[in-house]
């Protein structure tokens, strides 16, 4: 490294001007390169003739690790130390930085960041490496095949020089369409436990820049007075009491009549002025139901015949199988609305640019949505809207609304100003908890028939809830024949061999705005599937692990992989060997093409108080690009799943949200889980998601442990359904 640095220093002073090589993909997906002047593509990697290498990260960083992961891919194939590669977030350009799994749409979600970038970023790194090697081969007049690039140094045929010396020449070389990628046996960084997070340093000394931290010269802060009920409109408002607040600028109704924007010189003045504002609301079109009514409606829907036959099987035939069974299990489940509550409340800033356009500063999860929304609201062509992506303080899905809700709010607020001052939108925690876009409430009813020997002979499964995808740009990908796949994922496609399965779905009318929430439909389907399987094992008098393994003996790869993590978790978690006073529960689920099993070990019981002592997790997510980031995502996914299952729900009274802040939407706390241990199953399959798949098995594994102490919990959260926690 010292060698590199000193040579780089020398080169810097020697070079007249810095040349820059960009390698990325053209809109048609082909690998392409450009130098600084003719850059017609948006690159994945940028190499400058002073030796600095920068990965351009197209997925936003909310803690799930792409800044580290995508940088690793570049460093691996290029042949430079990871410490020497910087990263920056990509600008908004759906043609180039689209999520390959989303179509022409740039965004992060569905745990796809690594899955859709793995080949793309490696190819860019490999193409850049080959161009540098070819440039060196030309200069030294040797065969490129004799040269290699390692630790930033090109070597071979008796020569040796840092890559920096060839950046200028490499910019003139056409990249190979299919550059040679490393064989997994050659990986130094992919799979290494020694690659540290790239974003740790700024996040432990207060310098990391989140959207909330942006402070532009002359900015105004705007907070929004929202209708207390979904769908309410502003009838009138009075700002007289706000006028005495120092720093208050003005209040204005937003053009969509949904809310009043309160502008001030700073955040505290804006928050206070909003408190002082009085607004008369027109609730004639607003939601007026209470969550109890919504729950009753959902439960009625799963008790009746479903709207859609999802499985395509014969409902009457399955019912007959169950009616003729020797044991019938019949359970109804209910899952409440949930808020995401990312740690950083929603915020973004819009400022006018010198070219008459605007720049949005945002911890932006799906740039294409706000990009189009700002263009429409502010009546600017797309190329006059730019997005600066900053760190995001968590999301769990909340920053990715198909209608770009908070960026639209900021744009509407900006639109009612003279557009000379930057406008920073700040949501309070109360705005966040009461602001809708919840995980929809769902009900399930499942009837399972078992024969004398404890074999499943029929499974009638009905699901009711509000569709997330209908009416969004994702509808055409995910809704087929009226069935929103995200409402039922994990049930009809269960890897278990279930003979005679019927699955029905009923969509219920809109009660609130709803949204994907870490692991989407799997948040409820895994709970129901893994609770029912556990009950079936008990009814059959079989061990829950053996019972599951027997249902996975179909011989396909899916079943083998899910059995693999089940066995690993059972083994590492000491399944069946719990200490005196401890009880275990297990669950396994596939989501986002990853397989996760978890053993939850508790002490106590529902009456005296449950303490989660330990969670043991096994994950198969294909090639483990960064094992430590994967472990961290499992730990976080487990905590997120358990915390909400234990304690949280959003309820409505006459259309108004009852909760408002952390005291009544209580986060998981440090003492809630004794320990989490994560084991990664080695794999050579392509990498799959890790941000979400840790969540689905966590709550049912806990429920199964509690059930083993005597109480089967079929409605969440647990504390409102008979369980005490220590």
């Amino acid at each position, binding site marked *: 490294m010292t060698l590199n640095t000193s040579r780089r220093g020398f080169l810097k002073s020697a070079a007249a001007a810095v040349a820059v090589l960009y390698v990325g993909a053209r809109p048609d997906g082909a690998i392409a390169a450009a130098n600084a002047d003719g850059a017609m593509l948006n690159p994945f990697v940028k190499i400058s003739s002073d030796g600095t290498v920068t990965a351009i990260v197209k997925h936003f960083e909310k803690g799930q690790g792409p800044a580290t992961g995508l940088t690793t891919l570049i460093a691996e194939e290029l042949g430079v130390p990871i410490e020497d590669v910087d990263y920056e977030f990509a600008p908004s350009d759906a043609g180039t930085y689209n999520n390959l799994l989303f179509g022409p749409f740039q965004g992060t979600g569905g745990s796809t960041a690594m899955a859709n970038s793995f080949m793309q970023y490696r190819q860019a790194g490999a193409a850049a490496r080959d161009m540098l090697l070819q440039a060196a081969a030309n200069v030294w007049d040797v065969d490129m095949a004799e040269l290699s690039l390692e630790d930033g140094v090109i070597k071979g045929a008796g020569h040796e020089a840092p890559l920096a010396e060839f950046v200028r020449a490499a910019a003139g070389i056409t990249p190979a369409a299919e550059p040679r990628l490393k064989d997994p046996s050659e990986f130094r960084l992919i799979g290494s436990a020694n690659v540290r997070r790239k974003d*740790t340093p700024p996040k432990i000394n207060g310098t990391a820049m989140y959207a909330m931290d942006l402070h532009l010269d002359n900015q105004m802060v705007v907070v929004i007075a929202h209708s207390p009920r979904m769908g309410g409109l502003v009838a009138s408002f009075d700002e007289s009491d706000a006028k005495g607040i120092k720093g208050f600028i003005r209040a204005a109704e937003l053009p969509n009549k949904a809310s009043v924007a309160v502008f001030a010189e700073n955040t505290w003045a804006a928050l206070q002025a909003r408190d002082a504002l009085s607004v008369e609301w027109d609730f004639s079109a607003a939601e007026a139901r209470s969550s109890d009514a919504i729950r009753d409606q959902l439960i009625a829907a799963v008790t009746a015949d479903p709207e859609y036959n999802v499985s395509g099987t014969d409902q009457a035939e399955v019912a007959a199988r169950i009616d003729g069974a020797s044991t019938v299990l019949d359970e109804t489940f209910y899952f409440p609305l949930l808020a995401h509550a990312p740690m*950083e409340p929603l915020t973004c800033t819009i400022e006018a640019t010198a070219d008459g356009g605007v720049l949005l500063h945002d911890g932006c999860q799906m740039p294409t949505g706000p990009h189009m929304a700002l263009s429409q609201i502010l009546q600017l062509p797309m190329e006059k809207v730019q997005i600066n992506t900053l760190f995001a303080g968590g999301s769990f899905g909340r920053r990715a609304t198909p209608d770009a809700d908070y960026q639209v709010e900021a744009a509407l607020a900006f639109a009612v100003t003279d557009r000379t001052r930057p406008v920073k939108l700040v949501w309070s925690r109360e705005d966040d908890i009461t602001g809708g876009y919840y995980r929809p409430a769902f009900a399930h009813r499942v009837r399972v028939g078992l024969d004398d020997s404890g074999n499943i002979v029929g499974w009638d499964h009905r699901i009711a809830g509000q569709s997330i995808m209908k009416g969004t740009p994702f509808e055409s990908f995910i809704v087929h024949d009226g069935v929103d796949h995200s409402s039922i994922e994990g049930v009809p496609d269960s890897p278990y061999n279930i003979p005679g399965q019927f699955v029905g779905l009923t969509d219920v009318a809109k009660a609130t705005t709803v949204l994907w929430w870490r692991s989407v439909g799997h948040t409820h389907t895994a709970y129901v599937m893994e609770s029912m399987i556990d009950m079936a094992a008990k009814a059959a008098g079989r061990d829950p692990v053996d019972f599951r393994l027997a249902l996975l003996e179909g011989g396909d790869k899916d079943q083998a992989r899910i059995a693999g993590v089940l066995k690993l978790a059972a083994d590492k978690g000491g399944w069946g060997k719990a200490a005196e006073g401890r009880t275990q529960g297990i669950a396994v689920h596939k989501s986002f093409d990853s397989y996760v099993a978890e053993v939850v070990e508790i002490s106590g019981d529902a009456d005296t108080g449950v303490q989660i002592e330990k969670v043991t997790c096994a994950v198969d997510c294909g090639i483990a690009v960064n094992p430590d980031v994967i472990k961290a995502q499992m730990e976080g996914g487990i905590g997120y799943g358990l915390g909400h299952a234990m304690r949280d729900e959003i309820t409505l009274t006459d259309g108004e949200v009852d909760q408002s802040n952390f005291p009544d939407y209580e986060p998981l706390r440090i003492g809630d889980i004794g320990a989490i241990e994560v084991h990664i199953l080695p794999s050579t399959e392509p990498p799959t998601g890790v941000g979400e798949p840790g969540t689905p098995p966590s709550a049912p594994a806990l429920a199964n442990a509690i059930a083993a102490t005597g109480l089967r919990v079929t409605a969440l959260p647990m504390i409102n359904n008979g369980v005490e926690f220590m």
Partner: protein
Amino acid sequence: MALTLKLNGETRDVVAEPGTPLLWVIRDELKLTGTKFGCGVASCGACTVHLDGEPVRSCQTYVEDVEDAEITTIEGLNSDISAAVQQAWTELDVVQCGYCQSGQIMSAVGLLSENAKPTVEEIDLYMDGNACRCATYQRIRAAIQRASDIMEA
């Protein structure tokens, strides 16, 4: 009103209305944004700063009440204990989104300042008010123990 604060070893003149939470003076007036806004009601710990070395929630601390105190924010940490904590946080890659971590570190430094060798129970009790929505708790706990070892070495 005009106030003089002692912050991170310097004196800083600020103008703020009485009743303004210290959090907003630090963030909006002094533009030190390492101290975070998470809830505003003392239930998440993201806004934790030190007053004379003791962790407090700056969202529920009025600016006029702290004129006599030494205020330390994450940017002003500068002690053997804070160095040990930041080293441990780095070794264990504790952070995910990172938004809660300034507050976590301020509390961890507070804990280790009064108890150099805390047990797991003591850690859980002391850190209970610092929420992490990314659930990095397991690593926070391990990093505090690691920092304690570093301090001892």
